[in-house]
């Protein structure tokens, strides 16, 4: 009797949560996507207002070689940022997991601390460090490295550093979460049975880490493609990435159909990426069972 009541209560609760989530998905995800794709195929008037006249001009422009090149460059930059983030996140997460709980908590707090300030504040902080008269240049000069004009700021490298700085916690947190589920006994067993530490890591730890790494890649790669503020500030806004082009089309350019068309291309890419990853995960699970 009491068990039945509890399960009924749980069922009702999950129905409520499910319907709220569906509502959220419909209003805040599906509806904007419909508008996005509709705008991408619309025309605009003199002031830049979107008008209901079908046009493929914006989409054709977004798919022209020039902007596909910008997109490719953005994907490359995001991939590099993701690779760096994940490569550093694994040892950091490992250190946190291996530390005594008290220290582990403190270390994870340090990973989260950057979230206490805004992304732009962190970008400006990096700018003061990397500027021609900034600390990094002063340090390198004191060490006898680099000449008078190092030119660290306003370079693609500075933009990448900024992105790594911003997205690094997003890579650490999910990897740390999946490490927490790894039974340390398994590693001990592998070592006791004669595996080298490298082998134990590759064959025992990595498979356990996989979901965390996949989550880290998703949380880093996808937002990094579209990020524009940090990239423009640190990179000098010279050669724009796709996020900056969209921002300027929607802002100064007052060309919403074109901005929407680029957005639609990105969303399509994201969807393909996510579905492929999900399909591979399902296939992998089927294989394992």
């Amino acid at each position, binding site marked *: 009797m009491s068990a039945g009541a509890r399960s009924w209560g749980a069922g009702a609760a999950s129905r409520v949560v499910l319907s709220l989530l569906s509502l959220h998905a419909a209003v805040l995800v599906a509806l904007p996507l419909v508008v996005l794709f509709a705008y991408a195929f619309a025309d605009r008037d003199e002031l830049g207002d979107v008008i209901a006249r079908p046009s493929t001009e914006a989409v054709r422009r977004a798919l022209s070689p020039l902007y596909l090149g910008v997109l490719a460059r953005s994907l490359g930059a995001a991939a590099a940022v993701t690779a760096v983030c994940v490569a550093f996140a694994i040892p950091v997460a490992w250190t946190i997991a291996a530390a005594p709980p008290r220290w582990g908590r403190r270390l994870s707090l340090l990973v989260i601390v950057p979230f206490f300030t805004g992304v732009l504040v962190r970008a400006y902080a990096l700018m003061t460090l990397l500027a021609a008269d900034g600390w990094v240049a002063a340090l390198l000069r004191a060490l006898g490295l680099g000449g008078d004009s190092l030119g660290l700021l306003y370079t693609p490298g500075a933009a990448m550093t900024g992105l790594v700085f911003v997205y690094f916690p997003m890579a650490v947190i999910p990897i740390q979460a999946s490490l927490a589920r790894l039974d340390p006994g398994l590693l001990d067993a592998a070592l006791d049975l004669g595996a080298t530490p490298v082998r134990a890591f590759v064959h025992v730890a990595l498979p356990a880490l996989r979901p965390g790494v996949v989550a880290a890649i998703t949380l880093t790669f996808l937002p990094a493609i579209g990020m524009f503020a940090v990239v423009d500030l640190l990179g*000098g806004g010279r050669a724009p990435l796709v996020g900056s082009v969209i921002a300027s089309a929607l802002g100064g350019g007052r060309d919403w159909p074109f901005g929407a068309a680029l957005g639609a291309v990105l969303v399509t890419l994201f969807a393909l990426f996510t579905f492929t990853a999900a399909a591979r995960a399902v296939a992998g699970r089927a294989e394992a069972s």
Partner: protein
Amino acid sequence: MRARRLFLGQLAALSLAACDKKPSASGAPAAASSSPATPRRPSGELVLFAWSEYVPAEVIDGFTRETGVKVKYEAYSSNEEMLTKLLAGGAAYDLLQPSEYMVEALSKKGKLARIDAARIPNRRHLLPEYLGLPHDPRDEWGVPYMAGTVGIAVNTEKVKQPIAGFNDVFTPKHKGRIVVVSDAREIVSWAMATLGIDANDVSAQTLAKVKPVLERWLPLVKVFDSDSPKSAMLNGDCDLGVVFSGEAAALIQADKKYSYVLPSEGAHRFVDYLCIPAGAKNPDAAHAFIDHVLRPEVSRLISDKFPYTNPNADARKLLSKEALDNPASYPKSPGKLGTFRDIGKAAADVDRLVTELRAKLR
């Protein structure tokens, strides 16, 4: 578009200005400037939609103190951002602060309410050169707030040879040392100036001539930044900048090694206006605010904080000699200065040209 982030260094001057309430020097009755000429008393709330960091808090607080009208200051950082939010129609604004070409675009589309000149007696303080400009010949749609130019800021310690115009800036010798505002219309107008084409003569033919010039220029640029172009010069990464005059004025205030040059080929003068959008909820308070801002001792507060060019003749009389001597705020020989007109749909072609040239940069 225009950077309003300036130094807080001029705060000292404000304490002096706060107690300065003498009537204007123009000989008009003092009553006209201290009480509104209209029997309708402003009341309620005023929603001011203006450039970020362009209306000093002292000005707003003074208005609230005198009229009891609460002011809600919402900020934007480009004319186009303002336009986007205005057209989206989500919020009701009582006052806007567009630049001249945007005043023209908005008035053409019926987005502005006419200014009732009878309710702005303090308009008499304005310099005649800021009235009757081509975008609004009868001054129906807006009242000038502040003005400025786009010119060349030079770090004279690093750049020794004289810089007279755009052609001296954009040479291979200066590659990687130039910062420019990130504004397609501006950038295109500079190339047009060197070609002797009027900045408002935007067509497929003129843009075709502009393209090869920008193909040479843009690879030389290190930084594109409209928000705070002076930063790249202050922190030593760039030695030459094509920037808004207020940014250059701030550089000169910070260090005398900076100078400001109005390009010999011709430069762009911008004028920012206070305008009342069509359908504003509180036009009484909007008119009262415009008149308040035009009072010389109030207008002077704006100059103290944001050293752009003040179009208010009687406010200029209250400024310090140092402020008036700043060549970025008050150029001695302005030469050829032109204002932008609304170019309609061609604005998108201009944006496209610059975006596509920048996309080719490495």
